[in-house]
Every structure is written in C-alpha cells, then in structure tokens.
C-alpha cells in the first residue's frame, strides 16, 4: 500500500515524525494524478512547480518549528470557486477562464498558516450550479468508484480527487448539497458547517445566504482537522464575525484513548429519522443502507426514533427560487469589464455585456440567471422571492422543532447512488429533485456531514447527519462514533495508532 492511501492526519503525523517530507507527500499526489487524472479529471489547475516550491518551504518551516499543526505539510486540493492569489480560479466557467485573483480567500490564508500545501484546484459544476460536475466548461469529472458514473456535484472534483487518492483532503463549497451529495456518490466524508462558521471571504458567490465552505476527507477525523483550521471569525465577512473557531480537542482525546471511547459518544444521543425522507422517490437500496446505519447507531447506544419533519414538498421550490434569485445578482459582476472573458467585436456597451455573458456562461448558468431575474422582477417578487423566504422561515422552524427533541437528524444524502454520466442534464427537474435531502440544511443554515454507510453495486451510499445551528461539534462527534461502529468500508477510515499519537 502506497502512502497515497493514507489519511491526511496519518500523512501529517508521518511528516511530523520525519518519516516523510512535505515534498515527498506532494510528489506522491502528483504521481497518483499521473496515473488517475486522464481517467478521472478531478482537477482544473495543477501547478506542480508552485506546489513543490511551497512544499519545500513548508518542510523548512516544519523543521524550524514554524508549522506544528496536524496538517502541516499535508497536500490538499481546493475547489475552483475559492480564490487563490496568483493561481487561476475559474469557477469552471469560460467567463473566468484566465482569471487569476490578486488575493487569497480567508480559508486559503488559514490553510497556508497551518502549513497545508495546496496542490491544485478542483473541477466543479460551473459556478457551483449543478449536481454532477457535468456543467463544468472544463470537461467532466468521472467517479473514481465507477468511471461510467458522475462524481456528483458541484464539488465533484474535490470529492473525486480524495476518493481517487490523488490528494489527502480538499475544500469544497455547499449551497444546496454540493459537498454532501458528491461525498456520498464518491464514498468520502464531507461536511457543510453551520452558516457563519467559515468565512465566505474569497468564495465566489453562488447564493450568498446559502453558500458555505467545508472540508472533504477520507474520514471524519480528517474533516474535523480541516474544519478546525478553516473555521472561526473573519471581520471581512459580516455573516461570520461572532463565530468561534471550532475546537475538537475533546474528540481528539477520545481518539487517543480508543475507538470505543469515540463510539461511546453516541450513548444517549437522541437521533431523529424524518419519515418523509424514506418514502417517495428514494431508491430502496439507499433506504435500506441508511436505515441500517440508524440501527448501528441504536446498537451503539443512541436513542433513535422516527418523526415527521414536515415541509418537505416546499424545500426544493423555496431553495431554487432563493438560490437563482441571488445568483442572478451575484453573477451580474461578470460583464467583461473588470476581469475574465470579454467578447470581441461588440458594438455598444449593452451589446458587449450581452455577448460577453452569452458566450461566457454555460447553459445551466444562463437558465438559473434567467429564472432568478424573473423571480425578482417587478410584479413577481412577492409571489416568488418573498413567498420563498416565508417558506424558508417555516422550514427553519420545522427543524427548530425537531431539534427540541433530537441532537441529530439522520437522513440519506441523496435519493439514489451516482447516476450514469450524461443522464442528468437533459431533465433539470429530475436533477433538482435529487437535492431533496440536502437543500433544506442550507435553507436552515444547519451543519451536516455526509459519509459512506454502504454500497449499492460498485457505488457508495451516503448517510447524512444533520445538527442544530452552531452545534457542528455534535455532528462531528456523532459521525466519528458512527464511523467507528460502522467499521471498514472502502478507503482508510478510522484513525490508526499513528494518528492517535498525532492528536
């Protein structure tokens, strides 16, 4: 087994123990990319020279004690809608094809401070609009578990890269399930933190009230370690200034003691299973796998019961109205004036705008901008946008009620396993419906983690654990406990002895 199979914390520990250097770790990723990328295509930009130079610099810093954190020297990948100074950031769109940001996103600053080495920018649905990574203008990404299938989306590149062992961990962004659904499809762990936990400064906005950056890893502990680094207040994001940095030291202590100690975290935890999520269009194999996970948690000491969440039929309409409306405004800045693509040979100003945007944006993006412009337009604003915001309040209140009774809500991450390539885009409504279990979490601003809980054929099945706002720690504790109880699945999961030492 090559080192590429190890988890991020294991690599970090090896580097710390001087069994491995940051440069060797990065090289292992590039070697793996050489083998996998032609098939998987998880990355849009791979800047080997820059990454190797950075790895050498970080390695020095580790030697002289500048970097001491658990992920110092560990290669990570970043979704291509997160700004990286000096490295192209395209949102997988023609309109930003050659865009090189002059500044780093807040999370990039945090990663650099922690000594993580960014080895590339990952593919995604254009402007994060899609659930398959097929709307990317930079080509599709294939699911490493079965390359006839999509990796999910929109953070399909980040999840595929981790699943393919091309990188040890990655950052994604989640607006309506864009981390959790591809994590489920690719069989990795991915988390959408509470809205306001991670700064959005430098995340190219899709829907500002729903977007949140989160970690993707091979296991829960890797996600938690990454989340510790990127969470916390940032005075440049007005929606993330009072938040505390997440601190999982309690969990790390339990890992040091034993897996059983971690699993014990479930004891007495109240877990609600919304009955509406297990009827209707759900694939029976998915349903069974997720319910089996509920049984596992029950056996582990959790109090599991079903309940009615309500509001489920309003979640997708409310989500698409809100997301498209905000997107139509957020994407107005791409106009050929300040950055990115500009059409040649336009006539007047408005002709330039219209041609630039017509040529620069892909079809899915255009559709959502058109829809968003419509629902905000005069005469329709109240009927659509305000109505959706009212529904949003009722959806949030439904969750508030549930969390009076439960610590966690257990749900599938998606109604089916990863669909075959080329089968989703023709029917947008069907694609939108596949987000049924994820969008409400964004509408209510909740933390939620997706992780594998089984398989259907060659494809992983994702379990989703949803928590109360600003109770990200409970989500992580519950997920970590379940992970131990679940046992080995495909990739390396529960932390090894080495990791325990590292924490």
């Amino acid at each position: 087994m090559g080192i590429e199979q190890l988890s991020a914390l294991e690599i970090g520990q090896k580097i710390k123990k001087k069994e491995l250097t940051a440069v060797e770790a990065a090289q292992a990723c590039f070697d793996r990319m050489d083998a996998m990328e032609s098939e998987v295509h998880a990355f849009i930009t791979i800047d080997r020279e820059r990454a190797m130079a950075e790895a050498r610099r970080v390695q020095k810093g580790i030697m002289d004690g500048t970097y001491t954190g658990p992920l110092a020297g560990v290669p990570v990948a970043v979704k291509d809608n997160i700004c990286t100074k000096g490295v192209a950031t395209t949102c997988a769109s023609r309109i930003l094809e050659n865009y090189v940001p002059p500044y780093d996103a807040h999370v990039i600053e945090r990663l650099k401070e922690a000594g993580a080495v960014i080895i590339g920018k990952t593919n995604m649905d254009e402007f994060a609009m899609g659930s398959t990574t097929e709307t990317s203008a930079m080509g599709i990404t294939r699911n490493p578990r079965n390359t006839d299938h999509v990796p999910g989306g929109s953070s399909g590149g980040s999840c595929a890269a981790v699943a393919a062992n091309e990188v040890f961990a990655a950052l994604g962004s989640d607006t309506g399930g864009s981390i959790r659904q591809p994590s489920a499809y690719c069989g990795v762990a991915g988390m959408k933190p509470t809205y306001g936990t991670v700064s959005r400064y430098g995340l190219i906005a899709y829907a500002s009230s729903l977007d949140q950056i989160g970690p993707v890893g091979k296991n829960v502990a890797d996600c938690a370690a990454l989340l510790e680094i990127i969470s916390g207040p940032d005075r440049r994001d007005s929606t993330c200034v009072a938040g505390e940095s997440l601190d999982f030291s309690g969990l790390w202590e339990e890992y040091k003691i034993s897996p059983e100690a971690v699993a014990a975290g479930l004891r007495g935890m109240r877990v609600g299973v919304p009955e509406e999520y297990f009827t209707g269009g759900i694939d029976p194999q998915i349903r069974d796998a997720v319910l089996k996970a509920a049984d596992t948690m029950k056996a582990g000491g959790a109090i599991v019961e079903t309940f009615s969440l309500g509001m489920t039929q309003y979640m997708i309409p409310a989500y698409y109205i809100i997301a498209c409306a905000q997107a139509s405004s957020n994407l107005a800045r791409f106009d050929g004036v300040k950055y990115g693509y500009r059409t040649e040979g336009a006539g007047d100003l408005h002709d330039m705008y219209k041609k630039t945007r017509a040529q620069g944006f892909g079809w899915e993006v255009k559709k959502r901008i058109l829809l968003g412009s419509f629902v905000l337009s005069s005469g329709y604003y109240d009927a659509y946008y305000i109505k959706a915001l009212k529904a949003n309040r009722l959806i949030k209140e439904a969750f508030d009620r549930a969390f009076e009774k439960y610590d966690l809500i257990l749900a599938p991450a998606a109604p089916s396993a990863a669909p075959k390539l080329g089968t989703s885009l023709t029917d947008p409504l069907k694609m939108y419906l596949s987000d049924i279990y994820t969008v409400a979490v964004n509408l209510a601003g909740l933390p939620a983690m997706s992780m594998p809980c089984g398989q259907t054929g060659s494809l992983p099945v994702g379990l989703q654990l949803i928590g109360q706002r600003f109770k990200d720690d409970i989500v992580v504790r519950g997920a970590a406990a379940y992970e131990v109880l679940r046992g080995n699945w495909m990739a390396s999961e529960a932390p090894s002895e080495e990791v325990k030492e590292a924490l």
Partner: protein
Amino acid sequence: MGKIVIDDQVMDNVEILAKLSLTGEERAQAMEKMQEILDYMEQLNTLDTDNVEPLVNLYDRGNVFRDDVIEDNDIKSEIVAGAPKQKDGQYMVPKTI
C-alpha cells in the same frame, strides 16, 4: 396569483434584465424549461404563509460594523491589470454616451 406563463413579452424583459443574448433555439428551450420549473414551483402556493415573516438573515447575532479606519493594500495595480481592456490604470469600456 394565477398560473404564470412565460411568453415572448416576459422573455424579452428577462433577457434585458439578465443581460444575456440568446439564440432563437436557446430562447425557445429556456422558455420551455423555465415554464416547467415555474409550474413545479407552483407547489409553494399551497403553503399558507399568512402572518409569516420572510427569513432574510440566517446569521443574526447583533450588529456587525467596521471602524472608520483606513486600510491600505498593495494589490491595486494588480486589480486593474486583470481587466480585459484598460488604459492608464483605468478600465476601458465601449463609450457610455
């Protein structure tokens, strides 16, 4: 509100608002898909939202301000340098008058 029909008039207006020029084919397809999605969204009309306040800000932990203190940066020239067309440190656009 009755059933919304995406007709040519609505579409003309939406294209201006969205600043997108669509080909005939794209336009027809967009109208069809938008209609389909809006019809689906009609479901929301079955939800009683009388006396419900729209949820505008999920993050609401009191006032968020910055102090009136100048912060300089050293990337100004890089910002403008990223423009597709520029002259003398300014962004160049087709004439506006």
